[in-house]
């Protein structure tokens, strides 16, 4: 299942790339992409989305603390 989320305050392109790599590495995520230009996160997963989102938020807090995921 593909889901799209809006990211806020994603400031640098390199951070977006780092974020993408880190989110892809989360267990249960089949594929993910962060689009710096549209500030959108695409997640493909069959796992429980709430758990996955909590994990993603942790990763974001670690890599780019200014950035926020809009649920």
């Amino acid at each position, binding site marked *: 299942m593909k889901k799209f989320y809006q990211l806020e305050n994603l400031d640098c392109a390199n951070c977006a790339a780092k974020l993408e790599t880190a989110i892809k590495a989360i267990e249960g995520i089949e594929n993910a992409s962060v689009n710096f*230009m549209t500030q959108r996160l695409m997640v493909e997963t069959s796992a429980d989305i709430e758990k996955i989102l909590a994990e993603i938020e942790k990763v974001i807090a670690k890599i780019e603390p200014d950035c926020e995921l809009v649920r």
Partner: protein
Amino acid sequence: MTKKLKKHLWQIIIAGILFAASWLPLPRLVGLLMLAAAYLIVGLPIIIKALRNICRGQIFDENFLMGLATFGACFLGEYAEAVAVMLFFQVGEFFQQYAVNRSRRSISTLMDIRPDSARVSRNGEWQVVSPEEVAIGEVIEVRPGEKIPLDGVVTQGASALNTAALTGEALPRDVAAGDEVISGCVNLDGVLQIKTTKEFTDSTVAKILELVENAGSQKSAVENFITRFARWYTPTVVIVAVFLAFLPPLLLPDALLSDWGYRAITFLVISCPCALVISIPLSFFGGIGAASKCGILVKGSNYLEALSHTETVVFDKTGTLTKGCFAVAEVRPQGMSAARLLRLAAHIEAYSHHPIAESIKQAYGKKLDLTKVAKVKELFGTGITAEIDGVAAAAGNAALLQKFGIKQVPADIAGTVIYVVADKKYAGCIIVADEVRKDAAAAISALKDLGVRRTVMLTGDRAAVAEDVARRLGVDEVHAGLLPAGKVAALEQLLGEQSPAGKLLFVGDGINDAPVLARADIGVAMGGIGSDAAIEAADVVIMTDEPSRLASAIRISRRTVRIANQNIVFAIGVKLLVLGLGAAGFASVWAAVFADVGVSVLAILNAVRALRLHKKC
């Protein structure tokens, strides 16, 4: 400009003034204080970010490297250079943010199709609500100058609609009661009442917005390459910098740490892959945006990239190269006048709603006298028999003639032929043909000019009809008489005959050809606006029904890819050059800073060009 960006600009301006003032002939201490103040203004936020990231276990980040470079410069007593590094780094960052914001905004003007409200009739009065709150079957009112918020059917009123935001088509479309309208169009002159047929989330405008907003999630190979490159580039440069600083002084007798340390600092300054990481997605983002402005929706950067390698273009005939609606092309009577033959045929087909029957009735043009029609019988797969004016008559295909034992069948007619029999004798035939789209021939010659090697037409229609259309349009190859499964098989064969890098593009109307759309390298749905299935299945959606937009799409894609490649070669080239010069001791920190920021700025300016490509469509 956002508040954040404004603050950023002021920081740069103040630090810049202090930096410039420090060159005035002032006491050394005053100059140093000015530099220190400038450093604090532009440098401190970066140092703080670097420290924060180190706490989180991320060492190789550009903030840290900039911090390290400036500490090194201070250690060597090069205070002005330390400030310059920070100042110009910030200028580069500012410029990036500015350019990104600008192009985001230029795309969001495209997003202006989003309707803010709907005026809906409830309890006998008009209420203004958000479009999401309107249910299917409710009646909404749209006044001149307003956007149509939901898809529906006009129940009252007539007007002209501006569809430019959706289709790139400048000519307004006239609508009246009974016509279907799609959301996102702007009502130009009359008040319309519309009965909604879809909820907002299923409406055309919501679908298109979703598609454009999510387009970037499918990345191109170039973008993926850059991401991989960036992951290796920074650590590699830093490690080389460390060796550069410490190895020569340890190994060579007269090498100085201050000299080689300085060279290492130039390395650190250009260790950020920023220019590349930002300019490549920016180019593709601009290209996709430009295409949208021409009424071409591309679902991902990967498809935009693939379009530039189009080698084979496969067309579906009906609805793509032709209009998909039949019209009488020729009447060949035998033993009666053409008008009588048409009248006869129209009355035989009086009760049929087949597209061919409709076209004959339309060509007859007069009101049918149903009292003259009796004993209508449909013969499955051959035609219709009836009694017209008390005379037994029939209309149908060649099999019908055989049934009546008539042998003289006119051969080699391109088109669908309806044979008419009256009183058991051959009375002539009517040729019905699908009309070719106006710009179809131009589209094919434009594709050939762009270097497309092979154009193919697939159709379920008869070979004679297909070949005639192909000849008129200049299509290289025809596969006729195909069932839907046969189209997939034909496509598979064509896919196998391509060169490794070439891409196969299939264009259909999105109806019945979803499997073929999915199988092709790039599936293009044409005139797909309003058809959910087409928007789902295709990789590229052409919102108008002009096949010539394909050539525009390929042109935009080629230019976008060229811009992206220019940026890669230019940015990597300049960086390697400065790295080499820096290692050899020929490039100062100044040169490195200017190279780094300069490359960023130029690459971004180049990338922004992609946004303006829609002028080429």
